[in-house]
């Protein structure tokens, strides 16, 4: 995937994969997305932390699936035909995140991204990177690296 530098070096254009949770649209950096899978049976792992839904078999590899709603502090919801597992790579670790639906890839100039408020004291507020207007709605950009602490990433790697 080529990233267009139409905005110039001072205002790079970045690509974001957007997905939905409830009525909100979130974006994650396309460079961290490996693939998007339809929802399939997730095998629960006894003793796993509460934010882990379970594991899936991805072409012979075991991938841990994270409960994104729990991470974002949202209420649980039923899985639907539109639910997807987005396979992401963070610091060399591959995990899946379950979302309500995956939308499109959007192109955003760096200058279009606004800072989100950081007045929240909840841990989940840490990984909101910014917000952006796109097609008459606000896109919430998420920093996946901060979705979990180093200890939590280590915990997942040992599942």
């Amino acid at each position, binding site marked *: 995937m080529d990233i267009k530098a139409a905005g110039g070096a001072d205002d790079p254009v970045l690509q974001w994969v957007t997905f939905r949770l409830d009525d909100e649209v979130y974006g994650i950096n396309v460079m961290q997305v490996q693939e998007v899978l339809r929802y399939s049976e997730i095998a629960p792992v006894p003793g796993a932390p509460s934010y882990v839904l379970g594991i899936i078999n991805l072409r012979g590899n075991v991938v841990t699936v994270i409960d994104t709603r729990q991470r*974002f502090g949202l209420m649980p919801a039923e899985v639907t035909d539109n639910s997807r597992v987005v396979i992401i790579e963070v610091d060399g670790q591959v995990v899946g995140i379950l979302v309500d639906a995956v939308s499109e890839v959007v192109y955003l100039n760096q200058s279009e991204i606004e800072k989100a*408020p*950081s007045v*929240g*004291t909840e841990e989940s507020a*840490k990984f909101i990177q910014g*917000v952006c207007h796109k097609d008459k709605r*606000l896109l*919430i950009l998420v920093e996946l690296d901060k979705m979990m602490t180093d200890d939590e990433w280590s915990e997942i790697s040992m599942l």
Partner: protein
Amino acid sequence: MSPERSNSGRASRPTALAPQQAVQEYLNTLLQEATAAAVESEVETAVVAPVASAVAEALPVAPAPTATRPVVRPVEKVAPSAAAEPPADGWQHGRPAWAQQRFECLLFKVSGLMLAVPLVELGGVLKLETELTPLFGQPDWFMGLLPSKGEGTVKVIDTARWVMPERYREQERASLKYVVMMESSEWGLACHEVADAITLEPHQVNWRSDRGRRPWLAGTVIEHMCAIMDVAALVKLLREQDRRARRRN
């Protein structure tokens, strides 16, 4: 109707206070606090001045074998009520910089309580026509983000939760119609109604002297039964919270 505990915890109050009565009681509380604090401050000043004079007179007899000049210092430098420099919050003569002479305010209503924002600190008024975008992990007084062509992305505050959390009613959130923007900031106060603009003289306002407890409150106006907001203080508070949170992250 059996009496129940009100939000203030007093068991003898009737159960269903009319909303307007509840708001007036709350405003009265603000006024009483402001007045009580002002009176206390005057008493302290009156007590300190004679003491300071007594101290100044006593200074020449303090042991100073090598001193050739009296050690007496002017009383003005000892009295705590005399401020040599303007305070950091810009308040002078017990009121904000924008209230040193006649000033104008916009009145707006939140859950029956009339609030006022000085026009010099008003950024604009937006209609809450589109749904707000909520953000996870935010405090309950943060309603969400409102996109605006003119103002950019506005961070909307549930004003009632901030100003009178003890009297907050969740069902009133649905009828919020406007957002009053705070000047030079990305923050806006959600409200139910926007009323008139009024002109006030500084003496018409009971200015807060106790600035610690409700930093957002500049003063109260009995004639209009309203509370004037100190927008600069509120924006400063929000930005400090923002900076602290970013440093933690």
